[in-house]
Structures are given as structure tokens and as C-alpha cells.
């Protein structure tokens, strides 16, 4: 998510490019200082935040942060925990004490098994980047049906939009339940045709993440595909 007051320039930078003088600016995100110069650590857009200069990355892998809500896929089942793929460099263990059910030792696969998809919260990421996740929070559960799509995690903030404006519009216009994980996975459930339109709308947002009037374009797309008769007003849960 972007910081307030961040001024994004049009300038594309690649690792090693000089962003500014360290006498003039502080070292911002995805940048480093060396020999009086601030340089880019990643490919992306040069950005000023206050008196710092840094880079908004264009890609890279998802790194979990404590408190993130994510969508995980069970990849392995142990006697007292499950292993999940949350699209991060590391697998995330889910311990039996972090699920809303009472699970006997060795009885784990009766509750969740390989291939199951769950909504999770990142409980903690320690210094060694060891991740723990939980299902003990409102709205967290195993999900079934619908469609699971994956986009670049860096585009997730656009799918949500300013104070949730984009996601709210998607839900209202398609009458779908949509859950957006910070790890780039999005779950959409509802009437088949509507789910397909919502999924395509998300792909449009991903492809044109920085377009002007993105909200209008997405609205036009959905209106064309799903002529709005009554149009649902609200839906439950999301980010």
C-alpha cells in the first residue's frame, strides 16, 4: 500500500541507478546509500516520500507481514500442524492450536487436507522470517467453491482501491463474495457468470494498474457484461 504524500515520478529505475545525493535526501524504501549517493535496489518507479527518495517496486515476491490476511493452500499435513503455501518464499505452518476446532493429535487431516484452501491471518514473522499463521479470527475459515485467482501481490492495493472503493464497486456490481489476500490470491464466489466477470475485472485491474480512471473503466466493463438491473448493494467480508 502506498504511503501518503508519496510523489511518484515517471522515472523508471533499475538496480544501481543513482536516485539522488545523500546530502539532499534520506534513503527511502528499496534504496541504499553508498559513497554519498542513494541508489536503487530494485527495478521500479523512483518515488519521493517526504525528504526520502526510494523505489516503488514493479514485482518481486510476496513477503508476509504480521497482520496480513492471506489465502493459503494446504501442501502437507502433519500430526499437529498443516503446512501451507501462501505464495511466499517460505511455507507457513498452521498449528492445531491456531484453528477454530478442537483437533486431537494425529487427527489433523479430518479437518483440512492437501489442496484445501483457507483464509488466514499472519500471526507473526520473526527475524529469521519464520512465519506462523492463524485461523482464529473472525471470518477466517476454509473456503470452497467459486474461483481462486492469482495476481501480482504488488497490484493488490489497486484491487482494493482507495479506502476499499474498487473492491466495494466490484462486489456491488457483480453481486459476488470477494476475498482479497495480501499475498496476491483473490477468491471470488457467486453466480457462475458473475464470478467470471468479476475475475476478468480483476485481471483488467492487474494489467492496467496505473491507468487513469481505472475505476470508470472497470465499471464500464462490468456494465457491458452484466447489465445492471437491480444490482446488489452490499456484501459481506473482504479486506
Amino acid at each position, binding site marked *: 500500500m502506498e504511503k501518503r504524500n508519496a510523489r511518484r515520478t515517471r522515472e523508471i529505475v533499475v538496480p544501481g541507478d543513482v536516485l539522488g545525493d545523500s546530502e539532499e535526501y534520506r534513503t527511502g524504501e528499496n534504496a541504499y546509500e553508498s559513497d554519498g549517493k542513494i541508489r536503487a535496489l530494485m527495478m521500479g518507479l523512483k518515488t519521493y516520500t517526504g525528504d526520502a527518495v526510494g523505489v516503488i517496486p514493479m514485482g518481486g515476491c510476496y513477503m508476509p507481514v504480521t497482520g496480513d490476511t492471506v489465502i493459503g*493452500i494446504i501442501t502437507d499435513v502433519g500430526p499437529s500442524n498443516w503446512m501451507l*503455501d501462501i505464495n511466499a518464499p517460505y511455507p507457513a505452518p498452521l498449528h492445531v492450536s491456531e484453528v477454530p476446532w478442537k483437533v486431537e493429535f494425529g487427527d489433523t487431516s479430518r479437518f483440512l487436507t492437501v*489442496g484445501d*484452501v483457507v483464509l488466514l491471518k499472519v500471526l507473526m514473522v520473526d527475524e529469521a522470517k519464520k512465519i506462523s499463521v492463524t485461523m482464529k479470527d473472525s471470518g477466517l475459515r476454509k473456503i470452497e*467453491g467459486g*474461483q*481462486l485467482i492469482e495476481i501480482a501481490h504488488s497490484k493488490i492495493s489497486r484491487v482494493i482501491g482507495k479506502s476499499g472503493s474498487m473492491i466495494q464497486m466490484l462486489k456491488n456490481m457483480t453481486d459476488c463474495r470477494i476475498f482479497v489476500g495480501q499475498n496476491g490470491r483473490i*477468491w471470488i464466489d457467486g453466480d*457462475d457468470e458473475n464470478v467470471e466477470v468479476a475475475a476478468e475485472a480483476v485481471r483488467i485491474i492487474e494489467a492496467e494498474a496505473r491507468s487513469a480512471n481505472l475505476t470508470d473503466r472497470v465499471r464500464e466493463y462490468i456494465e457491458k457484461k452484466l447489465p445492471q438491473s437491480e444490482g446488489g448493494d452490499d456484501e459481506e467480508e473482504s479486506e
Partner: protein
Amino acid sequence: MSNYVISQIKRDHLMNLLAEGRREDGRQLDEIRKITVETGIIESAEGSARIRLGNTDVIAGVKVIPGAPYMDAPGDGVLTTGAELIPLAHESFEPGPPSEEAIELARVVDRGIRESGMIDVKQLCIKEGEEIWMVFIDIYALDYDGNLFDASNLAAVCALKTAIVPWKQYGKSKVEGDKVTEMDDVPMPVTCLPISVTECKIGNDLIVDPNFDEEAISTARLTITTDNNGNFRAMQKGGKGSITRGDLSLCLDRAVEIGKQIREIIG
């Protein structure tokens, strides 16, 4: 391929679509993905081709080198096909010697080429009993989105079709008894185009040219190679599930029909 977990939601979604006769990318059950062919891309090879079948991307190179014949076929050239599923192509491919999947792939492609008599190996004789041309076909997957069998078959066939036999380059003359014929580099003696068509069984449906996700949820696979006359030249059933006699019959019909379509595309 190995230990790649596909989510239950994805599986259910694909199955639900199939129940309505649909596929995720909008194709018909018997429709192949878009094929693009590039040939002559590797100058150090005597023939080469890169094939894109949808997002599956495969390269094949042909090396033609003088060598000794097998004793049981002293006047025939020798064909060898290898395939490598290099980790560059997919996160599930691991470095190391060819896996059993890679070996099966190479052998199925090899069988189609060999059994169809695509290459007239008699014309690859330099001097009977002493020297012949060895044709090495090496296949590498570059991007894997399902159906490496057909992509590899096409890459190998297109590479061979555009290959040369480097008589002049190696200073070789054709020796037949007392007769010695000086030779120019000549095109590979190609007699026909063996085309394989692979289908996967998902539930009770058979789909042509499966992509990665479709392969991942399938229970059986069948590859059928036909020649220009629509005769069958090689087959391979794979996967842990089974197919019925009726399935087989449908696959045979489709292999002939789609083989014809593909032959038109690659010319």
C-alpha cells in the same frame, strides 16, 4: 509434475466447467492451442526448431555427425532422441540426470519418428558397414504449460524437416562398391510428417492438448501418432487411471483429424 499441489477450488472449478463441456481457456474439448513455429534458429545445429503450443515452449536441435553403423543394419543411419525437462522451464522440474518423465517423453517422440519412417535412413549411409550419419535429436522444454508430448514431437519434426546432412562440411563422399560420389550438403531425407495428438482423461471426459492445470487433475493420458495417410504409427498410454475401449476409439478419430490440421499448420 511431482509434488505440485493444485487447490481443491481450482480442481472443482475445472470439473464444473467440464460438466458443461467447457474449458478454462474457452477451448472446445477437441481444440488445440495456437501453434507457432520458428526454424533455423541455432546455427551450430544442422536443424533446429522452437515450438510454442499455447504457453508451452519447446526447442529441438538436430546434430548430424559421421559415426559407425550398428552391425545388424550396416547401411542405415542411426537416430537418437533425447529430452530434458530442465528446471528453467518449471518450478517442479529439478536439476540432474533425465527423470523418468523426460525419458518417457524422449522415447515416445523417438518412436513416432522411427516407426513412421520419417527419415529414410538408407540415404544416411556413407560407406556400408563402415560409416553412416548419426542423427541426434535433442529436445529441451523452455516453458511448461502442459502437453510436452505434442510440443516436443512438433519441435523434433520441424527441426528434422529443415535439417541438412553435412556431407560437404565433413568432406564426406558416398561410397557404393567402387563408385565414389562427391556430395553437397543435402536436405534431410524426409518421407512423411509423424504428428502426435495427446489427450487427457478428466472424469469421463477426454480433452485434447491439455494445459498444466488440466494435466494436473487428469487420471490418464493417451498419445497417438499418425503419418500422412492417417495410419497409426505409435501410441502411449500414461497416467495411473484407465481408459475405456470407447475412449480409445474417440481418441483415434481425433488423432487422425487433428493430425491433419497440424500438418497443414506446419506445412
